């Protein structure tokens, strides 16, 4: 295990990040802007592109109930409600938190963003005599929050290596009041879940273990009432705090912390820095959030989750049939394919864009240097026909730009070869 610190200086890291991202920007693969967006399609530089990159997996940002509620809130309260929540908050906050309590069966506190939720929560939750362990691929926003708790030991853990976590727990013994493990529920750049079964087992066997899970990418599309993956698997434990996003599949804006106890919630609400001094969420966002929470609580929400699941299964099955290996078997709406080089991954994303599909390239520092990737998502916005077209195009593009991605299986024949084979078969 090692302490959380970098060999390189902050300035040096900025230089490196700047170089990598400048390269991608020059290729037109990042820092783009969309002229219009209806969920299913984004118009980028005048080119309509089918959206296979959104984190709005449930496609709720265009839902009439959310849009109408946002407009009502805007007309009632104006474009902002500008006063610290320590003094006074827009009453939509209370309504939203009550609805989220029912959704998640927890004590929920809404924050301006998931990052702000981490910055508010961790310094209050982690005690002076605690030890923190953070997964090496935990979301960058959690790493940011660990800067605020640098007075306690913080250890890095190889990704999801619960055997090493258990070793830390054994070594920690009674030296610390609590051992916090900070991880993601769904890792956004890899698409895999936290090892929930193993974590549940460790929680049972090590009473000093506490979990702090960033479940931003699992909110809404999975679990009862869309409560996400962490609460579905670990919700019964009173030693698990879950951070979620209201800005992704939930379709609104902001973040939230779901606590096992009301006292924890109240303490973070009173003492968490950003809860006092950070600007509140604009009323339109709160209105949309309240409408979304109410939608999540309706019986028909499960059918909406099923619609997304159908698309997820279609992608997984289609790619598997074509011999394209995904980075993980986890059934999430995030799909990652590793390529042998950053250039190969960039070429695939650029070729997809030329063919009318918006997807993302993931290279260092977002992912390890040895895992340059194509990252794409599906949402309820994508029609079944568009999902099929995306799979077909991706297979074709990979065949021509990076056939090694098919691994041990032979890549599908190029179109000309397929035609020749068909002609030969017919003449035979």
């Amino acid at each position, binding site marked *: 295990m*090692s302490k959380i*610190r*970098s*060999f390189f200086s902050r300035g*040096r890291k900025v*230089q*490196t990040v700047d*170089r990598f991202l400048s390269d991608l920007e020059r290729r037109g693969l990042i820092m783009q802007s969309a002229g219009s967006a209806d969920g299913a399609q984004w118009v980028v530089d005048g080119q309509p592109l089918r959206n296979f990159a959104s984190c709005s997996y449930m496609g709720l940002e265009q839902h009439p109930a959310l849009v109408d509620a946002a407009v009502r809130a805007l007309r009632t309260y104006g474009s902002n409600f500008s006063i610290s929540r320590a003094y006074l908050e827009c009453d939509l906050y209370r309504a939203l938190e009550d609805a989220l309590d029912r959704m998640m069966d927890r004590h929920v506190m809404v924050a301006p963003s998931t990052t702000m939720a981490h910055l508010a929560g961790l310094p209050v939750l982690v005690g002076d005599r605690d030890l923190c362990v953070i997964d*090496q*691929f935990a979301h960058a926003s959690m790493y940011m929050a660990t800067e605020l708790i640098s007075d306690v030991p913080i250890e*890095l853990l*190889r*990704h999801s290596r619960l055997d090493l976590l258990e070793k830390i727990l054994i070594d920690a013994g009674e030296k610390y009041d609590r051992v916090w493990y900070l991880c993601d529920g769904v890792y956004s750049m890899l698409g895999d879940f936290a090892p929930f079964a193993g974590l549940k087992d460790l929680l049972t066997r090590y009473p000093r273990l506490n979990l702090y899970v960033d479940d931003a990418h699992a909110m809404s599309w999975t679990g009862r009432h869309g409560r996400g993956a962490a609460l579905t698997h670990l919700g019964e434990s009173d030693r698990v705090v879950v951070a979620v996003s209201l800005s992704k599949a939930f379709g609104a804006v902001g973040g939230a912390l779901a606590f096992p106890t009301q006292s924890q919630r109240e303490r973070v609400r009173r003492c968490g820095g950003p809860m006092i001094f950070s600007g509140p969420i604009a009323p339109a966002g709160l209105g949309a959030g309240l409408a979304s929470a109410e939608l999540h609580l309706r019986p028909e929400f499960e059918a909406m989750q099923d619609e997304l699941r159908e698309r997820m299964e279609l992608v997984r099955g289609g790619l598997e049939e074509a011999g394209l290996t995904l980075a993980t078997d986890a059934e999430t709406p995030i799909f990652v394919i*590793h*390529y*042998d*080089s*950053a250039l*190969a991954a960039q070429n695939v994303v650029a070729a997809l864009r030329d063919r009318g599909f918006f997807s993302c390239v993931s290279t*260092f*520092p977002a992912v*390890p*240097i*040895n*895992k*340059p990737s194509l990252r794409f998502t599906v949402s309820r916005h994508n029609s079944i026909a568009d999902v099929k077209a995306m799979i077909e195009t991706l297979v074709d593009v990979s065949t021509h730009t*990076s056939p*090694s991605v098919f*691994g041990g299986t032979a890549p599908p024949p190029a179109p000309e070869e397929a035609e020749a084979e068909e002609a030969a078969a017919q003449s035979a």
Partner: protein
Amino acid sequence: MSSAPVSRPTIDDPAIAQVMNHLYAVISFEEGEEPDWQGLKDVFSKHARITRVTHEGTDHLEPTSFFEMTRNLVDLGAYTSFYEFEVARRVERFGEIAQVWSVYETRRNRGAREALGRGVNSIQLIRENDSWRVLGLLWDETHADSYLGFVNSPAGGHAHVQD
């Protein structure tokens, strides 16, 4: 005049080939594994200097700080697997010291079919206690695109492409 033996550019010296193979082997590791830390220590002289020219500046490292940097990159997840191998080598030996130009290729793992990166290592070897060890390791990450130009140049033209 000294009568110390001078070797022509060659890879025939099996002891030098061994240390070179070892150098590339210990730094490589597969998913879920780590570099061979002890092997890495053994391959370097304790007096070694490791110098890398990067786009962000030149790092001058002692073995301890080089190991620390490598471990930090692995711990932080900058690499979860790494495979580096030699594609060509030119060796000039004089007595107990040798200079090696070593053309390398990196891949994201042993099974990858395409290169992650390419370049040239300049390596100085010294015989210590009857074993060859790395006394100097220099590489330039800013000219990786032109490594083929080096291989085809008069200086690099003696490089022997490995099987």
